[in-house]
């Protein structure tokens, strides 16, 4: 992990309230799927944690939803050529064992973005079954990246495109096709809880990527903790953001 002064290459709107930002680092950086970065926005004391969607040499792409002041300023102010402070790569990321040949990825909302990097990393060696949930048709993005999966089911809450329902419902509905050896998931907590409940007792490892407000992003300040089922605390930025679902309290 390192603090970079990156150069913005592109920062564009790709779907309703969703922007894609590509920047160039000073040098190549190895990034594992599911890792994230902290992006500095001028005059904001805290950097914003954002998943890394694509890492190609020194080129990094992230996608972000316009949420509050910081992400809005990121979208409105940072044009190609501008400098950007970024800290990366952070966190542990998703990992599939050699023996795990079939991976189901289940994502909802901005949770789809870390999963894109997992699809990209594993599509060549593994069979990927992707279940990606969006609010509606206008929010769908990165479809061409998700299509690297062996099977892709897009779900929308309002049924305006693909499966009508959320990503977990889409996954359950398609389970006999997927029969995964391992599941990677990211999305709102209720979605992760539903997935944990739906897969309980099946013996399939489920890895969930968690979100929390962050200070340092590197494990030093203990701002971003969650509870482990063993009673101990874990730092989402350093020990996570990816945890085995049974290992943390959701």
């Amino acid at each position: 992990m390192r603090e970079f002064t990156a150069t913005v290459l592109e920062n564009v709107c790709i779907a309703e309230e969703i922007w894609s930002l590509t920047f160039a680092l000073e040098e190549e950086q190895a990034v594992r799927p599911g890792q994230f970065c902290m992006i500095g926005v001028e005059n904001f004391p805290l950097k914003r944690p954002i998943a890394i969607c694509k890492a190609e040499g020194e080129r990094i792409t992230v996608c972000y939803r316009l949420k509050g002041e910081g992400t809005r300023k990121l979208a409105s102010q940072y044009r190609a050529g501008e400098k950007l402070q970024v800290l990366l790569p952070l966190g542990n990321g998703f990992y599939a064992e050699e023996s795990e040949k079939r991976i189901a990825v289940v994502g909802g909302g901005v949770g789809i973005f870390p999963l894109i990097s997992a699809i990209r990393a594993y599509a060549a060696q593994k069979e990927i079954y992707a279940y990606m949930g969006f609010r509606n048709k206008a929010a769908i993005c990165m479809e061409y990246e998700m299509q690297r999966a062996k099977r892709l089911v897009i779900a929308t809450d309002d049924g305006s495109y693909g499966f009508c329902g959320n990503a977990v419902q889409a996954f359950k509905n398609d389970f006999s096709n997927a029969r995964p050896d391992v599941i990677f998931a990211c999305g709102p907590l209720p979605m992760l809880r539903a997935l944990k409940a739906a897969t309980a007792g099946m013996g399939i490892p489920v890895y969930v990527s968690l979100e929390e407000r962050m200070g340092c992003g590197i494990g030093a300040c203990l701002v971003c903790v969650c509870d482990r089922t063993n009673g101990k605390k874990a730092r989402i930025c350093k020990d996570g953001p990816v945890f085995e679902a049974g290992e943390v309290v959701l």
Partner: protein
Amino acid sequence: MADLRVTLCGVELKNPVIPASGTFGFGREFNEIYDISCLGAVATKGLTLEPRAGNPVPRIAEGHGVILNAVGLQNPGVEGFLSNDLAWLKSKTRVIANVAGKTLSDYEAICAKLDGLVDFIELNISCPNVKAGGMAFGVRPENVAEVTRVAKRACEHTPLIVKLSPNVESIAANATAAEEGGADCISLVNTFTGLAVDIERRRPILANNTGGVSGAGIRPIAVRMVYEASRAVTIPVVGMGGVTCAEDAIEFLMAGATAVQVGTQNFTDTLACPKIIEGLNRWCDAHGVKAISELTGTLCPNT
């Protein structure tokens, strides 16, 4: 190349830049980004006698130029620090063990455990005092003097820094109280108590409701307090509150500080401390200052 060394309570630091307690852990994570042996010292996360789990999340919020935190002293306990982190941290730089307690005897016991093992002990007295009905030790001058006296009894070999809370009536009175209690040094400021509201939910953003305000926005208040406190005492002062760059650090030095701590800026820029050290050197060279220690307390107020 200016001489950046400063001497604090007879202990030499290679420069006056110290990451502030709670923003730097025990230094290991930042050491993955840069070699922390370049720092004057490291102030550890607040230690307590027993391990503590801290507050529920969210523990952080942001305002314009400031942040609010309510981590609640999550730490592995002093024993955990002694056995896992101290030797490593000492091999890097000077160690300031920041400590907290709920009772006077907590403070005495934790100082006794650290005495002689670290370079400084920094007393965080912004914690609720069980005996005084939950009011922090750091509020009333008489409580400041008492907790300092008790802690000082246990600090036979290690200089004691008392870290003052800014949430008080008179910072000068509390600085004096710490000196009278036997403090070897004072540091200030700790965070200001604040509240950030999520107006959609009509609820505080922090799970703890209130949190400590820090960052660039508090700097003018902190510099004023360092100025007032340093004029009230003869012991050295460590200044902090919103230091983001070398120029900010110099404000504190001129106001009366011998060294500065850097907290929130470590979040904004993980390289903040080494950049500030570099910047101090450049500033001194550009201004013909041979030794940074010459700057302390050189502010000339308008008459």
